[in-house]
């Protein structure tokens, strides 16, 4: 699994380390405003939206950050890189399960 495709692994690692570049854009994407941002962005919180917005609130690394690590850019960047590592690691782990069912 890990001994081939060295250049691809290295490219992935480079992008993970560079991921804090994604923090430069501080704006929220269109249609992804949190219930705390809606009053300002839209003027009100739609009733149905309010009901389902918190359907899932047990994300351990919300918004790709470690809760509490938001005092400085360095902290956010650290949380962001850690999130990229955890996320990429989990994706690789799950996909590698295909090793068990694909052919040689």
């Amino acid at each position: 699994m890990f001994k081939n495709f060295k250049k691809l692994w290295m490219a992935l690692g480079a992008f993970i380390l560079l991921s804090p570049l994604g923090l430069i854009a501080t704006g929220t994407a269109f249609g992804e405003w949190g219930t705390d941002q809606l009053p300002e962005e839209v003027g009100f919180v739609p009733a149905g939206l309010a009901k389902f917005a918190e359907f899932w609130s047990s994300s351990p690394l919300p918004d790709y950050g470690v809760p509490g690590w938001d005092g400085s850019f360095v902290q956010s960047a650290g949380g962001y890189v850690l999130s990229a590592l955890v996320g990429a690691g989990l994706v690789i782990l799950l996909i590698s399960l295909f090793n068990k069912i694909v052919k040689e």
Partner: protein
Amino acid sequence: MHIPDGYLSPQTAVPFVALMVPIWGAAIKKVQSDLKKREVPVLAIGAAFCFTIMMFNLPIPGGSSAHAVGAVLLAILLGPWPACIGISVALIIQALIFGDGGVIAIGANCFNMAVVMPWIGYLTYQLIRGKSDFLSTRAIAAAFIAGYIGLNAAALVTALEFGSQYHWFQAVDGTPLYFPYSVKVAVIAMMSEHLLFAGPVEGMVTALGTWFVARNYPALLTKKLTKRIEPDEMGVDNLV
């Protein structure tokens, strides 16, 4: 492009989950029968790359942001079915662990970014590249255009899902219950951001990614032309 929970009515979001179940089933079957064992790491790295590239938010004038996805690159490298699996896994992790994109909305998000995007992109690429070599200018241009069109197709479908809610679901007093803007507003906002900013970046990611793999691992891309890939064809570092 990750629709959060609450922006789509359950009547819209849940059918998308139901629609995705047979698509995921077919994709797993297809990957099981078509993907070679030595290609699994490429799908794993590729999906992890897509996960990471989605974290590169691009600032959009006016205070918004958008990002590339990588789904078309994955589709060109391995085919649209493996891309569907790879992107779906990335989106599910993003929703559950990072709160990016809703959990009830996971079906819609996977439909947009793991079905519409890789298939539209893949077909565009095939159509433009024709039989030209993977490293030819035409093939690289095809990858750029395919990434651009694939992302914008996903953005358009997302905008229609968003906007339809405004017209379909309103409280008795006429206020929208879920997504608060019309189809027209949603399409203009989503498309201007993706046509002008995220689309060209997606095109670049797709073109550079295809070029990088074609250069370093040529046998990976030409596998459909050969019956069987020998270990030493997978790239120089395979021998290490």
